[in-house]
């Protein structure tokens, strides 16, 4: 992987604390993501991994801390703003648009790339038509990339789990993001589906140069894919570093072996 050029800092998270009522979900988390790297966030269930992603793309608003993305520092931003700044993501339990076809789901991902107004769309001539076509081609490129041509017109609701995950990845890619957040992209997949997904993640990273932050439980996968790994436990930052460092970190081992927290 060293031929990949990992650049400077793209995203910097500083002292993020988030709580719902009395429940503290994230407690003073700080880390960064470098241009073009694959960054993993791991930790037991309820460690606050998904919440961390939600904070990054603006769905949750932390009480403290700041996020710096591409040099701009904010306390929080609206989800659609995050999207328009090039952050896309997939979800732990699939959040596809069940009523729509694979193609439409991916086309929806192109939303921000399309501009024509209602009037042209109603007539479906001129700019609207052209725009539709060029984005359709972009969408088709992604469909080929993920090789899901066969299910192009199928309503996603009926697709098998693995494929749905793939379509969801496609939808995220369609936005041509700079930072791609993957929330357990391989959860509930069999080994070969996992392999496929791993390949896609690597290809995305190397071919499109997309920076990736992913949450994953499968340690093997994590260790293979990631450049750096962040470990969360009960909303606290347990460790952060290269895969090997993390692997040998005592706290991490305890956490994973499930040694009761207070003793650790």
């Amino acid at each position, binding site marked *: 992987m060293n031929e990949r050029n990992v650049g400077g800092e793209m995203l910097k998270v500083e002292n993020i604390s988030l709580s*719902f009522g009395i429940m503290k979900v994230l407690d003073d988390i700080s880390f960064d993501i470098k241009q073009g790297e694959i960054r993993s966030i791991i930790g037991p269930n309820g460690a606050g991994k*998904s919440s961390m992603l*939600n904070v990054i793309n603006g*769905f949750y608003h932390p009480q403290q801390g700041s996020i710096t993305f591409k040099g701009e520092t904010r306390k929080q931003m609206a989800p659609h703003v995050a999207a328009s700044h090039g952050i896309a993501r997939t979800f732990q339990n699939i*959040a596809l648009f069940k009523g729509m076809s694979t193609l439409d789901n991916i086309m929806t991902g192109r939303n921000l790339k399309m501009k024509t107004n209602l009037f042209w769309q109603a007539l479906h001539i001129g700019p609207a038509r052209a725009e539709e076509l060029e984005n359709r081609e972009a969408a088709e490129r992604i469909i080929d990339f993920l090789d899901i041509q066969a299910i192009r017109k199928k309503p996603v609701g009926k697709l098998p789990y693995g494929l749905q995950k793939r379509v969801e990845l496609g939808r995220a890619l369609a936005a041509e993001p700079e930072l791609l957040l993957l929330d357990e992209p391989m959860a509930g997949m069999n080994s070969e589906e996992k392999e496929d997904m791993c390949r896609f993640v690597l290809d995305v990273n190397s071919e499109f140069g997309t920076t990736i932050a992913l949450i994953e439980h499968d340690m093997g996968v994590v260790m293979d894919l990631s450049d750096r790994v962040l470990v969360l436990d009960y909303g606290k930052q347990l460790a952060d570093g290269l895969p090997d460092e993390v692997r040998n970190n005592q706290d991490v081992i305890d956490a994973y072996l499930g040694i009761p927290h207070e003793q650790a």
Partner: protein
Amino acid sequence: MLFFIEVALSGLMAGVMYSLVALGFVLIFKASGIFNFAQGVMALFAALTLVGLMEKFGMPIWLAIIGTIAVMVALAWAIERFMLRPLVNQEPIILFMATIGLAYVLEGMGDILWGSDVKLLDIGIPQGASDWMLDSFNIYIEKLEIFAAGTAAVMVTFLAIFFQKTRIGRALRAVADDHQAALSVGISLHTIWVIVWSVAGIVALVAGIMWGSKSGVQFSLSLIALKALPVLILGGFTSVPGAIIGGMIIGVGEKVAEVYLGPIVGGAIENWFAYMLALAFLLFRPQGLFGERIIERV
């Protein structure tokens, strides 16, 4: 000032009358997540049946009431068997539509069975103004409405006990949360639904009796459902106390508005004012005054 108290009081009373109808909605929504639009027509149907049994078959009141309850239970069973069961796990809006279909069916059946002329319903509920209030405080309150308020109180108490103390009641609460849990209580979903709809049917009967004695039993009785909806959203679809409190807020609100604001803008503002009031509340609490909080996750 005295007049204002009078207005507010009769608002409270009217509100309780609405709550009687809203209660039925709440029960069914709580236990099965169905927005039962037929509740109003069920009230009409129950009242029609009651009168019919008394007039056509000359039953004494108590027997007629028992008979009507039996009919409502049978109805609940039929609804579960022929409507809910085939529609299980459908979108809420589909079930909502189905209940409107149900409303049509009941409306037609009521007319065919008992005829569509106005029927008097007199089961000895005191009528007219409370003379005592009128003479000693010069405040006008209908005896019927005081009676209705009392009934509502009793009914809510019963329901509370039913939900808190009885096994079935707890099961119902469980269903509200999730269906698996319900099964774990050891009662089949079907039974639970039959029970809920029966209870709602009985509540409808009470509402039907109150409104029927107030204005005679006739088709229009089914339209009180529309009066109950603002109560419903204000109180929250899932809260029994909400239905009562909501009813009172709506009742007082609309009466005060009609009496003091109405003359200025040309009157007959009660209906939309009730909805606007409810809407205003919703903007601050989207799940209604007593509805469960909605937490969004991804």
